[in-house]
């Protein structure tokens, strides 16, 4: 059993608070991803779990034992670093066995474990090579191998794919997921890439400015973000935020985006939103995939409107279109054959069944 518990964790550098009191329960065998922009405290949190940074306040427990003052080597963790941190003068075998050797593990046991880990990662034929003779992807595998052989309670990954090129990153992402399915070790993974977070995680923790914004499964975060920050951070292209007013007119609730443009609020949301009618600082959040070209059949909560397209970006499988409402740039995703072209008027359709209403003052999704 290796659950990791963080209670009111604080990290202070001189007078700057890097982590401002976070609570987190990481379940046994879970793959948990900490994601956020740079400087949000995610790496610091990971390094505190590893024992590489002192904790300024709060408690960290691994497997039920508080480890605040336990040195890294006695925490039974393994860490994979962004730049791999392989020992350059040792070959792959020596790199992987270094930790076990220091623990005075018997030779045949070391040999068995290294060969087994090398088998999992498909690096058996690289065992007698030096790190400089390996490609970036191979070095990353060795770094993971070094973690696996130690059979730790917790794996810690600190942006392990950031140094790889885009294609290799996608490949290694799948690799990491496969390895986790094989070894089922509790994993904490730090990244700034929301796609990595979404694809790898059992649960994602979105951090911002030293605090946790939201914890949830990838789908939870995508479909029901708790704050404007999460809504904007998860998903690419990012969610559109359009300043709006909520109007109560003739018994129906409408979101007004401009003098000419307003949509009725879906009937299942009227009760939830009614009390916010007439308030200032409201923002409509609508993902680009919910703004598309018009189609013959209209379903509930779908509304057509005409718009002048500013820019079109063909992506192959879809075309991204950009237009403006008021002073806000808005992105939509249309079928490549829908005839979108820069400077042309186009009939679009907004699907409001997935709308979010956000209070821009508090940043909360209503």
């Amino acid at each position, binding site marked *: 059993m290796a659950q990791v518990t963080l209670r009111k964790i604080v990290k202070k550098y001189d007078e700057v608070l890097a982590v401002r009191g976070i609570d987190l329960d990481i379940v046994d065998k879970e793959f948990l991803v900490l994601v956020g922009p740079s400087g949000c405290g995610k790496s610091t949190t990971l390094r505190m779990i590893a024992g590489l940074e002192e904790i300024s306040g709060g408690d960290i427990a691994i497997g039920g034992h508080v480890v605040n003052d336990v040195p*890294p080597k006695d925490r039974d963790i393994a860490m994979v*670093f962004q730049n791999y941190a392989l020992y350059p003068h040792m070959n792959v075998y020596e790199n992987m066995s270094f930790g076990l050797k220091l623990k005075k593990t018997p030779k045949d046991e070391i040999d068995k474990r290294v060969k087994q880990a090398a088998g999992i990662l498909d690096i058996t034929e690289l065992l007698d090579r030096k790190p400089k003779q390996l490609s970036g992807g191979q070095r990353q595998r060795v770094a993971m191998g070094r973690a696996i052989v130690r059979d730790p309670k917790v794996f810690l990954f600190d942006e392990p794919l950031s140094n790889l090129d885009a294609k290799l990153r996608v490949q290694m992402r799948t690799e990491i997921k496969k390895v986790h399915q094989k070894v089922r070790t509790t994993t904490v993974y730090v990244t700034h890439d929301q796609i990595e977070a979404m694809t790898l995680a059992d649960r994602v923790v979105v951090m911002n400015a030293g605090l946790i914004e939201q914890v949830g499964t990838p789908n939870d975060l995508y479909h029901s973000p708790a704050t404007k920050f999460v809504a904007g951070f998860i998903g690419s292209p990012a969610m559109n935020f359009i300043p709006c007013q909520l109007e109560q007119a003739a018994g129906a609730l409408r979101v007004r985006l401009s003098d000419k443009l307003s949509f009725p609020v879906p009937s299942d949301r009227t009760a939830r939103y009614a009390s916010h009618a007439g308030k200032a600082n409201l923002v409509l959040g609508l993902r680009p995939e919910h703004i598309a070209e018009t189609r013959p059949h209209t379903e509930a909560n779908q509304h057509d409107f005409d718009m002048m397209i500013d820019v079109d970006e063909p992506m192959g499988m879809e075309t991204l279109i950009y237009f403006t409402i008021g002073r806000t740039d808005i992105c939509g995703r249309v079928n490549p054959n829908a005839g979108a072209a820069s400077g042309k008027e186009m009939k679009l359709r907004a699907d409001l069944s997935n709308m979010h209403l956000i209070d821009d003052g508090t940043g909360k999704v209503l």
Partner: protein
Amino acid sequence: MADAAITAGTVARPNYGSMSRDRRWALRWSYFFLVLFAIFFLMPPIYMLITSLKTSQEISAAGNPWWIYDPTLENYIELLTQNHYLTFFRNSAIVSVCVVALTMLISVIAAFALARMKFWGSATLATGVFLTYLIPETLLFIPLFKMFAWVNETLGIQLMNHWWTLIILYPTLTVPFCTWIMIGYFASIPKELDEAALIDGATWTQTLTKIFIPVALPGIIAATIFAFTVSWAQFLYPLAFTTSATELVLPVGIITTLIKGDVFNWGQIMTGALLGAAPPLVIYAFLMDYYIAGLTAGATKG
């Protein structure tokens, strides 16, 4: 109109010069200066070699100084059999080897602490180490005389006129600079490497011996070469602190025993200097390959 068409038709080729011609000239110039450089630096040792193979008569005769009319090994035989030359050589060798060992022991450990263990005042201390290197040795030997006198008075240990005293003295010159070099090398090792070692369960000592020393080997070799050269060629301290013939080291020994009043035994002086220059040369030749091989390649991305 017709004129314009014709001028437009003939495309003018501006005379930029070609890449290969530029490169040829660059090569010629570099060879020219390299040859000049080689002549300038090889002249003294060649002259030493030529003179060492001449008899005293031939050296003082007004013949062509670059030609040996009557080659002889007399200078070598005499120097190695009838003088204290071998004693000087032995003293120099023992002193240099001990100084190098002592220097590397102190500076590697000091540099590791200063580069990696952040403690109160570590940055100031690192700068302080370098500043001590900037104090000229000529300012130090009078205070050192006073200190030796005090040691003699209080502890009864005579430090003057012993070759082994130099083993204590030379590190004052070598340790600051070697520590500074090693701080630079250790600082260039990525922080993640010792963090990985820390998580792998290594103690500070193991991190130093199993990770830092092997990875920083080129730096250690550079520092070793420096320490050896300094202690092998050091002149002022042995001149000031040792006097008896049996306690002298090479540089001082050669000039004090082979120059008698105003009589210069040039043949033997040149022979002694030539043989004395050999060990650093041999060490350079052996360690250069190590020095150049970049051992840090592949530690991280790159």
